[in-house]
C-alpha cells in the first residue's frame, strides 16, 4: 500500500466532496471504487481530516454492505438472490460458483485474488432472473452451467 498516494487521492476526494460528516459515505465510496476496499491506513487519516472519531468511521464502514475492509478479487461476481431470482433458482448458481472456486459464505475471495463471489439482495433486474453481475455488468438468465462457462471466459481474459 502506497500510503502517500492513498492520502493524496483521499485529499482530492475530500476537496471535492467536502470535509463535513455528511460527505463521509461519498468519500468512502470513492476510496472503495478506487481500491476495491477500504485500506486500514485511511481511517486515521479521515478521522483527522474530517474531525471525526476513527471508531465512528469504522462503525459507518461496517454498517453498509458495500464497503469492504479486505481487498477483493479482480472480478467481483455478485449473484442476485432477490425474490425473483430466488424463485427462478439462483441458489444453485451461487453454489456452483462457490464449488468451482472453492469458496464459501466466509471465504469470498480466491487465493489468486482473481474472483470474489458475493450475493446481492436484488439487482433490480428481475425481468432477467436469475441474474448476476461481474464488476457491475449484468449477466441475465443464468444457469449453473452458464456460470461455469463465464468463469472460464473470465480466466482466459485475465
Amino acid at each position, binding site marked *: 500500500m502506497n500510503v502517500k498516494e492513498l492520502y493524496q487521492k483521499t485529499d482530492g476526494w475530500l476537496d471535492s466532496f467536502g470535509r463535513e460528516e455528511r460527505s463521509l459515505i461519498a468519500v468512502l465510496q470513492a476510496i472503495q471504487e478506487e481500491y476495491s476496499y477500504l485500506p*486500514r491506513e485511511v*481511517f486515521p487519516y479521515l478521522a*483527522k481530516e474530517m474531525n*471525526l*472519531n*476513527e*471508531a*465512528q*468511521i*469504522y*462503525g459507518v464502514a*461496517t*454498517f453498509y*454492505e458495500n464497503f469492504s*475492509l479486505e481487498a477483493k478479487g479482480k472480478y467481483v461476481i455478485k449473484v442476485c438472490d432477490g425474490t425473483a431470482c430466488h424463485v427462478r433458482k439462483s441458489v444453485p448458481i451461487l453454489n456452483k460458483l462457490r464449488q468451482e472456486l472453492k469458496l464459501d459464505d466466509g471465504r469470498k475471495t480466491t487465493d489468486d485474488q482473481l474472483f470474489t463471489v458475493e450475493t446481492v439482495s436484488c439487482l433490480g433486474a428481475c425481468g432477467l432472473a436469475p441474474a448476476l453481475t461481474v464488476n457491475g455488468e449484468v449477466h441475465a438468465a443464468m444457469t449453473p452451467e452458464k456460470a461455469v462457462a463465464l468463469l472460464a471466459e473470465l480466466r482466459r481474459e485475465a
Partner: protein
Amino acid sequence: MMKEYMLIDKIPVPIEGEKNILALVQKAGIDMPTFCYYSELSVYGACRMCMVEDDRGNMHAACSTPPKAGMSVVTNSARLRKYRKNILELLLANHCRDCTTCEKSESCRLKELARRFYIEDVRFPNGKTEPERDESSVCISIDHSKCILCGDCVRMCNEVQNVGAISFVGRGSKMEVGTAFKVPIANTQCVGCGQCSAVCPTGAIVVQKNVTRTWEAIYDPNTVVVAQIAPAVRAGVAKELGEENGVIAAGKIFAAMRRMGFNHVYDTTTGADLTVTEEAAEFLERLKDDGPFPMFTSCCPAWIRYAENKHPELMPNISTCRSPMQMFGSVIKEYFEHNEKTAGKRIFSVAVMPCTAKKYEAIRPEFKRPDGTDTIDAIITTQELIQMIHEAGIDFKNISPESSSMPFGGTSGAGVIFGVTGGVTEAVLRNVEPDKTYSALQQIAMSGVRGLEGVKETTYQVGDQELKIAVVSGLGNAEKLIRKVQSGEAFYHLIEVMACPRGCIAGAGQPFARSREKAERAKNLYTTDNMTQIKRSESNPAIDEIYAKYIGRKAHSLLHVHYKVKKK
C-alpha cells in the same frame, strides 16, 4: 391555565412539562422496566421494554412518546407482559447466564428484570458467545459477550463525553459495540473516565479491580499500607452499606479501613488543600504575567488525557499542579520513607477514589519517583472499597466513626467540596479573595460556581480585577466551551473541567446512582463544608506543617508536573 392530565393505569397524572410518557409513568409510582432509557442520555428507544398500551390496543414506547392530554395508557396488560417476557427471553438466549461469578450480579439490570418478570425458561438455543474480554485498559474491563446492545455506553462516550472511543460496529445480529478495527480499548482515545461502565446495565463494562493487590499488601507484615480517601467517596458509600443515602460517612470509613488492616488512613482533602494553595499561587502568577489564559484546572486525569488526545495545543494552558491525590501521594511517600518507625518496610500507598481514570493517572510515567517506583501503588474505587468492607464482614451501620491518622489530620471545607463540580473554583476563590470574612465566603458561594449544571459561566471581582470564570463538567461540555474560547467568542481567566457530569460525586468508581441521588451527594459535601470549622485551604494547619516539615525545598518538584505533549 387548566392543568392537563393523562391517564396512567386509569389514574389521572398531571402533565408538567414531561418530555415523554415514561417520566409520567415514573411519577405515577411505577418503576418502568427499561434498559436504554437514562434521563441523562438522549432517547434511543431500542430495548422496547417500556411499551405501554393505549385504549385502542396500540403500543407506544413510553420513552419516546410525548404525553398527550386525555390519553389513557396502561403499563401492565396481558399483551405487554407477553412482549416484555419475550424480549427478556430473547436477550437471555444470547446472554451469559453465569450470574454467580459475574461481578455485576447484584446490580445487573438484566438479571433484575428477568427475575421480576419471572422468566422460567428460555426456549431458544443458547446463542451465548465465548467471553471476549478486553483487559487492555487499567480503568475498565470489557466483556462483549455480556453486552445487550442498549447503546448506553456508546451514547455516553460519544454524546456526553465526546470521546468517541467506541461505536456500534457491524449491523443486525452481528452488531457489536467496539473500537475501530477492534483494537484494544487502551489503544484508542479512551480517557478512562469509566462513564460507559457507570451506565452499562449488565456486566459488559466494569471497573478494573485492584482489590486483590490491596489485600495482599495488607496481609504482608513487611508492608505499611497507607490510604487516602477522596472527598466524593464519603458521599457515595452510604446506600450500598445499609445507611441512608446522604449520610456523611468519612469517620466510619476511617474506622472500617483500620479494622480491615490499613495502617494509616488519611483524607485526600488535605491533598486538595495543597492543590488549592499551589493552584491559587499559579493563578495569581498568571494574572501578574498576563497569561497564558484560560488557565485550566488539572485535578481530573480524564480531562488531562482528553486534552492530550484532542487538544495538545492547550497543554500549556493547563495548570502544572498535580492532582490532590498525586500531591498527597508524594507527601505520603516522602514522609514515610524518612520516618524511623517505618524504616526498612515497603510503603504501599492506596488511594480510595470515586474515579476510574485515577487508575491510569497512577501509572503515568510522569509520576514515577526518582527511584522508579510509583507515587500511588493502588487505586481502589468506592465500589471496590464497599466490596472490601463486605468481604471483611464489617457491620458498617454500627461501626463508630474515627478520625483520620496523624500527622496530616487537618482538613478544610474548601478541600471537601473538590468532589463536586465548581468546588475547585470555589476553593481557589476563597484563597485569592483577600477579604477573609464570612460574608465574603457567602458571596463566593453565591457567585454562580455552585450547581450541578454542565456549564456555568460567571465573573468574580477581586480587587480591581474582574475574573472571568467557567466551570464545566462532562467532556462534551468542555469541548463546546473550548470551541467558544478558540473561536474568540468567549474569554475566561479560569476554566474548571471535570470529566464526569456533576463532578467526582458522579464518578464512574461510585456505586450506580440516578440524578436525584447524585444531587444528594453534592448536598452532602456542601453540608460537610458548612460543618467544618476551617473553611480555607491555607488556614489548614496541616498545610503549613507539610511545607515546613516534610517537603521543604522539594515542594515544587513534588507538587507539580509537566506532561509530555504528544504530537497530534
